[in-house]
């Protein structure tokens, strides 16, 4: 029969193979559930059905659209073609302003209304999320 070394090696290879398959399976499974898609207001308008999953939306905050009261915050995100109303209750990053880019993460209520859970921070006043840049230049 085969020598001890060969047996050991075969065992090792099988072990590596099994763990590789296991890892891939775990990772892909968990990716499926935890990936957040990015959509622009135009893409949302064209959706055939409303996503129940968490998504990110992005665009510009429309001028004179921010409304504040002590409970929450409402504003309109636009890609200059379509708009969506966002309501939010939580902490707001520094660079959140009218006529600046914004990315919000949360759930769609319908094609015109988005409930945000998080507004994402940016580091740079010139920075525009790549998706927003693209969404704006496409229109």
């Amino acid at each position, binding site marked *: 029969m085969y020598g001890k070394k060969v047996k050991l090696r075969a065992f090792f290879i099988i072990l590596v193979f099994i*763990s590789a398959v296991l*890892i891939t399976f*775990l*990772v892909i499974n*968990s*990716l499926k*559930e*935890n*990936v*957040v*898609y*990015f959509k622009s207001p135009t893409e949302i308008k064209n959706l055939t059905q409303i996503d129940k999953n968490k998504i*990110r939306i992005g665009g510009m905050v429309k001028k004179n659209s*921010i409304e*504040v*009261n*002590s*409970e*929450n*915050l409402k504003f309109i995100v636009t890609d200059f073609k379509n708009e969506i109303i966002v309501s939010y*209750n*939580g*902490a*707001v*990053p*520094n*660079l*959140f*302003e*009218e006529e600046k880019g914004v*990315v919000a993460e949360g759930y769609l209520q319908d094609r015109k209304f988005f409930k945000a859970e998080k507004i*994402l*921070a*940016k*580091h*740079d*006043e*010139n*920075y*525009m*999320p*790549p*998706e927003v840049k693209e969404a704006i230049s496409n229109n």
Partner: protein
Amino acid sequence: MINQFGSFSLYFSLLCSSYLIYKSFISQTTINKRLSENVFSVLSVQLVLTLISFFSLIYAFVISDFSNITVYNNSHTLKPLFYKISGAWGNHEGSLLLWLLVLTVFLYVFFITTKKLNIKYRLLTIFFQQIIIFGFLVFIIFTSNPFLNIFPVPEEGLGLNPILQDPALAIHPPLLYVGYVGTSLIFSSSLATLVCGTINKTWASHIKKWILISWIFLSVGILLGSIWAYYELGWGGFWFWDPVENVSLMPWLCLTALLHTIIVLKNRNLFHSWTIILSITTFSLSMSGTFLVRSGILNSIHTFANDPTRGIFILTFLFILIVISVFIFFFNQKNIPDNLKKTYLISKETGILINNWFMMFFLSVVLIGTAYPIFLEVINDSKISVGPPFYHKLMVPFLIPFLFFMAIGPRTKWIKDKVMKFNLSQIILFVICLLISYFITSITNTKYLFSLLLFSLSFYLFFNVIRSFSLKNSTLSQKVSHLGFSLFILSILLNGILSKEISSNMKVGDEINFMNKKITFENIKIEDGANFKTLIGNFKLYDKSQVTDFNPEIRIYNQPETITSEADISSSLYLDNFLVFSLLKNDGYFNVRYQYKPLMFWIWFSIIIMSLGAVISFLKKNEK
């Protein structure tokens, strides 16, 4: 004038590099003493040239020489001197120059500290390292030269992004880069030793020092970045699984695996190929980290505005380096000694192997989570992001066995040990840990099997490490580092279940109630800072009979025009109270966020302890 100096030094440095690549390659067969002196003098010249170009850039920043495009884009006359200097590496061009400087300094230090080693090995290390230096020089000179002129000379610069005007972030990049670049030397040296066929104990104990240095700097660099994000971005956490953070974590995981493997190589002369593979991987990850951050490919909320075309160069360069190293690895298989030594299942070697498996698993999770969105975008143009739930779901369950093995691993002996280590006292200890965890999870209402196990094993690890200080089965540095890690895990877990936060929109005079506490917004005043105007809010936190004042700021910079929030954090050994507010709209409302964060100090401090362990190991001569 000074610009030309800097620029010319780079060109001359490129010449030195070409000469050294040529010289070290042809002379590794015919070695004599004179030649080595020759190489030494060219290396010194190159070091001086790089220093000249680096300091001329700093000088240009200090005197605000706006004829230099880099200075114009990133500086302003009104900026404080400290941030003028740190502005030199706060941008793409300058940071690459810093990379280059560290590369050169490391190679120089390597050369003068290895006089006793094999000359062929030293020459080959220089050869590989010079290829990297050459690549970076070409990259700097042709795609991101920091010394380009602008005409007519502008009156005033555009200013440095105010969010970067911070002491922690001023020293964060240099530390991180020393860590990254240190891995380049490990890479060059492993390839050299592979070609020479000298992968042995001597090499292991010599390269271990370099691994330790890189590991220490990388850890502290990541720590500073994390602290900065904590107080400056106002998110109140210490890790966000953001791609930019992930790319620094990946080399760290790999380097940690290497740090453990090299101990086996040093003590038992095992795992030769694996050490080499890890060295190559660590460096590739560091390079791609720089590439991903600097190219703008990463879809990160951290991203700075930058130029994507540059990425192509680093990617090509990285690809070439990896191909070369894989070729060298396969064509020098005969130089790798066979592992014919008998190994046993229950031994320290196995323990370290298990550590490596876990490190590789964590690494693949982070790698896939970071790279998957990039691939998906290329393949079907959909834009996605992978958030913390992904990482938590995949990593936290594996932490349970990881902590278990970490608790028992270091207690085993080299070569062969007995299963009897699992005696009664260990079982009693584990039961005690279970009870403590049961108590903690009941009073905090987080009683799930999962958190219970996680807590018990963290305590189990902690007590085992504490106990190991009285035993003689491993080195002091290992115990200190593992103590740091166990404290780290414990503080993260406790912080995770005990943290609370509230955010609300408030006007002056408003108050909110939260967890038996009352926060009132007293007043607001406007002051002038060095190069900004600031709105200082005054908040009072009433907690039982105790009143704490908070004075967070909103700073309005005008060059470039940016608003930043400065959180006010009242820190103690056990607890951070974090309060930050930001502008919403000019109708009197401010967005106020209060966070209750226990044990933040211990999260930072435990990383210092971990690094301290590495420092002890570094300082020790000829440890066993």
